C-alpha cells in the first residue's frame, strides 16, 4: 500500500460522513491508488460495490486479495468481461464489454439493491466510458449516479485517470461530488 496516498484520502475525507468523491489519479500510480481507495472504504464500511470497466473482476479480485483488501466484502459489476448473456454470480454480475450507459446504470442499481445496510460504491473508471461515449453523456451519467448514491445513502468514489480528455468531465462533475481528490 502506498501510505502517502492512503493518508491523503483519509485526511481529505476526514470531515465527511458518507463522502462521494471524484478521484483523479496519476496514471503512473493507478494500480496502487485504486487499492488505497478501496482500503479506505473497506475499513469504513462492511460492503462494497465495485464497478469495473477496466479489468475483468477475476483479475481484480486476485490483485486485491494479494494487496490484503478484503475482497469477499465486494460485489463486482463487471462491464468488460464478455459473456453471451447477463451472467450473475454470488460475487459478481457481468454486463459484457462496452456496456451502454443505461444498462450500466440499471446493473449498478440492481447490485446496490441486493445488499441491505451500509455500503460504498466505486466506479473504475469514468475514463473508460469516454472511449465509447461523448463527454456530455458521461457527465450526465455521472450526475445521475451521484444523485442516486445520495438517495441510496451510499458513500463512494468515481475514479478517473488523469488525462487531457477528462478535463471537461472533471470540471462538470466536481460540483456534484463532495470533494475532488488528486492522487
Amino acid at each position, binding site marked *: 500500500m502506498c501510505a502517502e496516498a492512503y493518508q491523503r484520502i483519509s485526511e481529505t475525507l476526514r470531515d465527511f460522513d458518507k463522502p462521494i468523491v471524484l478521484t483523479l489519479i496519476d496514471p*503512473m500510480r493507478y494500480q496502487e491508488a485504486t487499492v488505497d481507495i478501496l482500503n479506505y472504504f473497506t475499513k469504513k464500511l462492511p460492503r462494497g460495490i465495485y464497478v469495473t470497466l477496466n479489468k475483468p473482476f477475476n483479475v481484480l479480485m486476485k490483485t486485491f486479495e494479494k494487496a490484503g483488501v478484503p475482497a469477499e466484502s465486494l460485489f463486482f459489476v463487471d462491464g468488460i468481461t464478455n459473456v453471451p448473456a447477463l451472467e450473475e454470480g454470488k460475487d459478481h454480475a457481468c454486463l459484457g464489454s462496452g456496456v451502454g450507459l443505461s444498462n450500466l446504470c440499471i446493473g449498478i*442499481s440492481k447490485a446496490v439493491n441486493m445488499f441491505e445496510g451500509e455500503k460504498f460504491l466505486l466506479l473504475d473508471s469514468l*475514463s473508460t466510458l*469516454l*472511449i465509447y461515449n461523448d463527454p456530455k453523456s458521461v457527465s450526465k451519467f455521472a450526475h445521475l449516479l451521484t444523485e442516486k448514491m445520495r438517495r441510496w445513502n451510499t458513500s463512494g468514489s468515481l475514479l478517473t485517470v488523469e*488525462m487531457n480528455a477528462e478535463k471537461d468531465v472533471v470540471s462538470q462533475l466536481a460540483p456534484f461530488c463532495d470533494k475532488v481528490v488528486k492522487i
Partner: protein
Amino acid sequence: MQGMIQLAVLDPMLYGAARAFDYLGVRGQDMLDRIGEGIIEYGLSEGYFEKANDPHQFVGNVVKFFIQNGYMSNVTVSQSGDTLDIAMWNWRFLPLLRKLRNRNSYLLTCPVCIANNAITKSVGGVSERISENVTSDGTYSMKVKIVPGTTNTQSTVVFAHPADLTKNKIKSQLNESVGLAAFETVAYGLACGFEYLGAQAQLILDNIGTEMLEFMREESNLELPDDIEGSLETLSTFMASKGLADNISVKHSPNRVDVVFTNYHYLPVLKRSLTKGRSLVSCPFTLTARAAVRNKGLRVGDMKWQIGTNDARLAMTTLDTDHQQFDESAVSKIMGHA
C-alpha cells in the same frame, strides 16, 4: 535486415507518444519509459538482442541492434565515473527532436533512449541530463550522469544546457527507412506500455493517434477529406506506400469498417500481443484511423481481428454518439424499478 519501413510511419508514432504525455510535465517521461520496457521485452523475446547482467553491456547490445536497423550509423560512449559522453551519427530522431523542442516538448521518445532509460531504471538509476550539442554535420552528442532513482525529475528530462537546434540544418528524413525489427519493437512497446491501466489505456492510444494525424498533416502534407470513407482511404494509401503493408484495403459501411492488410508488417507484433491476451493495438494505421473516426464525432467500438500467415483482416464497429445520447430522466425512472 529483414525489411524496411519509412520514418514517415515510425516518426508520427514517436511524436504522438511524446505529445500525448506533455500534459503530465516531466512525469510524462515515466510513462514513455514504459514503452522502453516493451521495446526490451519484445527485442529479447524475438532474439533481436541479448540480455547482459552488466547494464552498460545490455544497453550496448540494444544500441547495436538499432544501429543494425539503421536508426543511427554509429554511437560512441566514453565513461568517466558516473558521467557518460555519448555521440550519435545520423541519429534518425534528430529532426523529430527539433520539432518537439520547437513545441516546448522536452519528453524524449527516441526508442534507443527510452529503452536505455528502462534498463537504467531496472537497476535503480536514472540519467541526469547535463549538456548536449549538435555539430553542423548533424552529429549529436550529450553528457549525462547516472544518478540513483527510479522516477524522472526535471533534471533527468530537461538538459541543464540544451543544444540550440535552430542553428543547424537538420533535414527531414521521413522518406528514409529503418529496419522493420526496430519498428516492431516500438510498436510493441506502445501496445503493452500502458496495459496496466486496463481498458482505459485505449484513451492514451487514441490521444497518440490524434497527435499522429497532426504530425502527418504538418510533415507529410497529408490532408484528410471531410468524409470518413475518404479519410480512411487516404490513410490506408499513405501507410501502404510507406511500408506498413503491401496493400491496405478499406471498406466502410454504416457502423462498420472492414480492413484487409496484405503482407502486413505489424503482424508479428499483433500476433504476439493477441497470444498474450493483450487487446490494445498500436498499428499506426488503426491508431490514426480511430483518431479520424473520432474526429468525425463517432467512436470505435469492437475491433475483431482475423489473422493469416502474412495478412490480417480487421472488422471495426463505429458508434454514432449523437444517436446514443444518455437520457438521464428515462434511465432514472428505470433505476427506480430495478
